[in-house]
């Protein structure tokens, strides 16, 4: 991940879209300061409600996480503690951050489990993760992350592991809770369909960099970066059944051999002479429409 500029206001949704390995999850982990060694944040700042998260001590950051900033992880199967009942996992944050007593935390956790659509939450409180289905576990994850009413929620592929009918339930739930809590939401996904329907602004990432950032409607109607354009064109929905799909040739580069130029240049149909030499800056082309490509200068 490399040189990300991004902003989010209260009550808004931002999406980060990209393919596997493009650095979108790393962006989220950086905001949460959860980068595992040997990874390191080597520069930049993350301003949350006026404070630079990168300057906080580990202790201060811990008070932030799960409290004012929260995260939903991709894998509901592996992100829960298998030897702790789901209710206690939800209550843990409340006892820690809100200093609630055991009984109060239990009551609050039951209420939240009910809000995220778990039937008979008092009874399910003492269940363990393995007793629940994938959709249920993802609800528990959401309940955990929302227990302390955070101001900002980061959802990293919250529905990728789930079936479409369950995905629709979960996305609707996140939307509703976002409205109720006036929460800012960062949605990380590879699914352009999920993005199109619920984010105000969308960033497209490729090879560790944001290559385009625009209001979602504008991005879909008027994609400027050749990668965004190729991605949208390659959707089966944008071809007639049975016709060949429009493809982006080549494959996703690995980030270890980083070249000086634009990461997309090997697959790009346009290719200017500078592409291989140096990386273009993000440039504002329309109102709020930023793009990183030598086509626009």
């Amino acid at each position, binding site marked *: 991940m490399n040189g990300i500029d991004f902003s989010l206001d209260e009550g808004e949704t931002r999406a980060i879209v990209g*393919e596997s390995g493009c650095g979108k999850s790393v962006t989220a982990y950086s905001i949460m300061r959860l980068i595992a060694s040997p990874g390191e944040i080597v520069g930049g700042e993350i301003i949350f409600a006026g404070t630079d998260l990168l300057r906080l001590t580990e202790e201060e950051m811990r008070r932030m996480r799960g409290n004012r900033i929260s995260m939903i992880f991709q894998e509901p199967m592996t992100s829960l503690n298998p030897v702790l009942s789901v209710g206690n996992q939800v209550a843990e944050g409340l006892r820690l951050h809100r200093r609630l007593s055991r009984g109060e935390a239990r009551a609050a956790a039951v209420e939240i489990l009910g809000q995220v659509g778990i039937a008979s939450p008092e009874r399910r409180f003492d269940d363990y993760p393995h007793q629940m289905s994938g959709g249920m576990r993802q609800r528990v994850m959401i309940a955990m992350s929302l227990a302390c009413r955070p101001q900002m929620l980061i959802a990293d592929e919250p529905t990728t592991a789930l079936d479409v009918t369950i995905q629709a339930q979960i996305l609707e739930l996140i939307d509703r809770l976002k409205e109720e809590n006036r929460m800012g939401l960062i949605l990380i996904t590879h699914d*352009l369909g999920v993005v199109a329907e619920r984010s105000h602004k969308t960033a497209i990432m490729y090879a560790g960099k944001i290559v385009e950032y625009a209001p979602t409607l504008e991005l879909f109607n008027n994609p400027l970066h050749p990668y965004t354009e190729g991605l949208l064109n390659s959707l089966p*929905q944008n071809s007639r059944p049975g016709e060949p799909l429009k493809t982006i040739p080549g494959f996703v580069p690995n980030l270890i051999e980083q070249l000086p130029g634009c990461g997309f240049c090997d697959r790009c149909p346009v290719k200017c002479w500078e592409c291989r030499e140096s990386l273009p800056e993000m440039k504002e082309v329309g109102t709020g429409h930023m793009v990183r490509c030598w086509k626009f200068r």
Partner: protein
Amino acid sequence: MNDVIIETSALRKYFPVKSGPFGKKLLLKAVDGVDLHIKRGETLGLAGESGCGKSTVGKLLMGLIPPSAGVVNFRGRALYGMGKEERSAFRKDVQMIFQDPFSSLNPRMRVGEIIGEPFAIHGLAAGARRREKVIELMAKIGLAEEHYYRYPHEFSGGQRQRIGIARALAVSPQLLIADEPVSALDLSIQAQIINLLMELKQEYRLSFLFITHDMSVIRHLSDRIAIMYLGKIVETGSRADVLDRFLHPYTEALLSAVPHPAPYASKQRIILRGDLPSPLNPPSGCPFHTRCPYAEQICRSEPPPLKEHEPDHLAACHFSTKLFR
């Protein structure tokens, strides 16, 4: 019925499952009475959510697991009555492409050996001639000759899926069973593989069983579609019939749940309540009644038969006509 390449009738597969250390034996009805057929040169898309039994159908058609009841007929011959030689010919004529391009290739074999192995197994080509054929296949699926001596770990997911496809094509099969062949791939790579499969289908006049949960992929590839729910087919018909003129509330909900990549395309979304019921303890009557927004009393008690409502368009719902026509 000459042009039907494979068909099943009343196909069932039950797995015995023990619940708890002293629990009684239960039957998991993964596939519960499935009738389907694929004609020569046709692509049948089999769709449904995880756990609905679609992969088990694929395995039954491949002959990888024996059915608990019912028959699979391949070109009019019962799969479980074939002699040794016929069986071996069947194994050549029907090939499979797997979902996970990482675990379905032997990490200790070179690409050339992986693609060449079917030639060896069926005694079709050896030595220099085998190598020549392998390289020809590699060119067809977009790999260079220099890749012959590489190992699978040196390739990306999309390239590995190409290797799996080449291996399946090596023995000129008539039917390809593809179980979620593109779901593990990145979006920009998915389109490449879908195109490759469509080209190869034309070139080799292949029949396809395409198993997936992705409704946009299935719309793109299939001639006919079957929708499965809890081990049963709930609707089947031509692509246009099933996707645009559906007759089952589950099909409707499944299609409505797919997010559309068009911003704020406001549409009325049907949100199904609840989870897929456990196949160990399926609901009485219609299997879908616990989540169906239109369920009535009869749905809880009477299982609806899979009925032909229009020519070649079947649905298993008591209220198909009332709801959708």
